[in-house]
């Protein structure tokens, strides 16, 4: 070895040795991991549940990732996740292959700027607003201002739920603005006096105004009683019978404690 290279070589080996020592010194994570992946609407709740689950069951770990309802089911099919989170009903081909467990219900809230005087809309009016056939707020009893629609991107569970519950076969107007998360939708509507959007009821802050739909305010009670029509299921989906780790997490979520967490976070309990 040339003389000049000797010193760097020694330094490098010492460095490598130290690295090895450190990684050896740290205990490997021995906990049994359940991988949960899917809907960004369910993700924050699943993360909260995961923390409590880990606190209660040392030796177990819940790893929660987003990606979207469809991506979650895809990950399940590919074996990359143990549980898929899905914020819409399963499609027919999905229902044939996977088993859903209802963990909670969520309302779909219609949100407008706090200064917007409109506070009650029918499903037909909503369809008109979002399809672009109603273009001015005064046609639904509001100010003389153009309607600016904010929607979710193609493939989002929230969008699909909205399409099923409100739009039916009608399409959302092409001039609708599109954002890729509940948070971004909220930010857009909060800043624009003529905007209207939809988002998960569980994630609404108090600086947004929700609209009554067919005279029903979106609350946990009205969703549970079935009076508020824009509600969707939050599902944990497994491929066949879940393994013991996944089953432990599902059991926790369905337990009184898990359901209470979901309720305190704004969702509607199912047990």
């Amino acid at each position, binding site marked *: 070895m040339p003389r000049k290279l000797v010193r760097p070589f020694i330094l490098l080996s010492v460095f490598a040795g130290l690295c090895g020592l450190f990684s050896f010194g740290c205990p490997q994570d021995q906990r049994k991991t359940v991988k949960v992946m899917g809907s960004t609407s369910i993700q924050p709740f699943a993360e909260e549940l995961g923390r409590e689950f880990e606190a209660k069951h040392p030796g177990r770990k819940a790893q929660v990732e987003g990606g979207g309802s469809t*991506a979650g089911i895809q990950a399940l099919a590919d074996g990359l996740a143990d549980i898929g989170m899905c914020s819409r009903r399963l499609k027919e081909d999905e229902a044939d292959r996977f088993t859903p467990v209802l963990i909670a219900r969520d309302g779909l809230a219609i949100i407008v700027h706090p200064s917007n005087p409109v506070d009650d809309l029918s499903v037909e009016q909503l369809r008109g607003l979002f399809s672009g056939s109603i273009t001015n707020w005064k046609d639904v009893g509001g100010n003389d201002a153009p309607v600016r629609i904010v929607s979710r991107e*193609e*493939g989002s569970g929230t969008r699909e739920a909205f399409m099923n519950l409100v739009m039916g076969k009608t399409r959302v107007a*092409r*001039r609708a*603005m*599109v954002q*890729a998360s509940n948070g971004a939708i909220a930010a857009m509507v909060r*800043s*624009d006096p003529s905007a209207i959007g939809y988002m998960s009821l569980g994630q609404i802050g108090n600086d947004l105004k929700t609209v009554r739909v067919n005279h029903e305010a979106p609350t946990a009670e009205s969703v549970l009683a079935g009076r508020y029509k824009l509600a969707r299921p939050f599902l944990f989906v497994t491929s066949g019978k879940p393994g013991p780790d996944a089953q432990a997490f599902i059991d926790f979520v369905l337990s009184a404690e898990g359901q209470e967490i979901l309720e305190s976070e704004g969702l509607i309990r199912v047990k």
Partner: protein
Amino acid sequence: MKQDKLIKAILMAVALSAIGGLGLITLFIFKEGLPIILQIGVADFFCSTDWSPGEQRFGILSMIVGSVAVTLGAMAIGVVFSLGLAIVLTQFCPPKVAGVLKPLIELLAGIPSVVYGFIGMVTIIPLIREYVGGPGFSVLAASIVLGIMVLPTVTSISIDALNAVPRSFWEGSVALGATRWQTTHMLLLKAARSGILAAIILGMGRAIGETMAVIMVTGNSLEIPRAITDPVRTLTSNIALEMNYATGQHRKALFATGVTLFIIIMALNTLAMAVSRRRVAGGGNR
């Protein structure tokens, strides 16, 4: 000597792996994206404005128009400021001041794009909504944000181009009685023309490829904009917005969007190289 050879081989391997990476990326994008373009039909894919992946309809014309509109807007704003800056910094400002200003402008390139997008969202958009009209999220907002983002690229390459004009040109012109400004716009700008053009084209490449900042300020609607205050969706934001959820044909169609973007950017870069190689005769800088 042996060591030399070793180092040379290592460096060569590093250089080749970079090029190899580019080759693999190209191959992958085209492999994923090209079949679906052919399946949909070139005309239907590029000339239809109907993008509804849920119904298996993939037309990207509105996104192409969106990207072009936003890029042209950004260049209209960016080029005026960049060229102005380049001229001031090379011709009209004491070298000491220029020495401070130039690194500051280059610092702009180091700010992450999500920060530009956020600033645009909380400051520019309310201003546009209030004083210009429309929802604020618009071609105009993106043009302003991107105009600022391309400043460092276009300014520093333009400065290099202006500095590369031989000193004797300037001396000759001033000796003939021309003022500084006359010298600048009648002589220097013409002599440095190809370099400045290359700077502008490279700036365009940056503008058209920008994603995060654009998603945050354009509103991402699917309609072709009729005014600069209308929202718009670009090719890049289409990919980033929908990639998370896309499966099957939809995913492939997003790769096809990537193919389109790839071709546009390759064309721009090739153009930039061709232009900067064609120097004005006697320009002196090789």
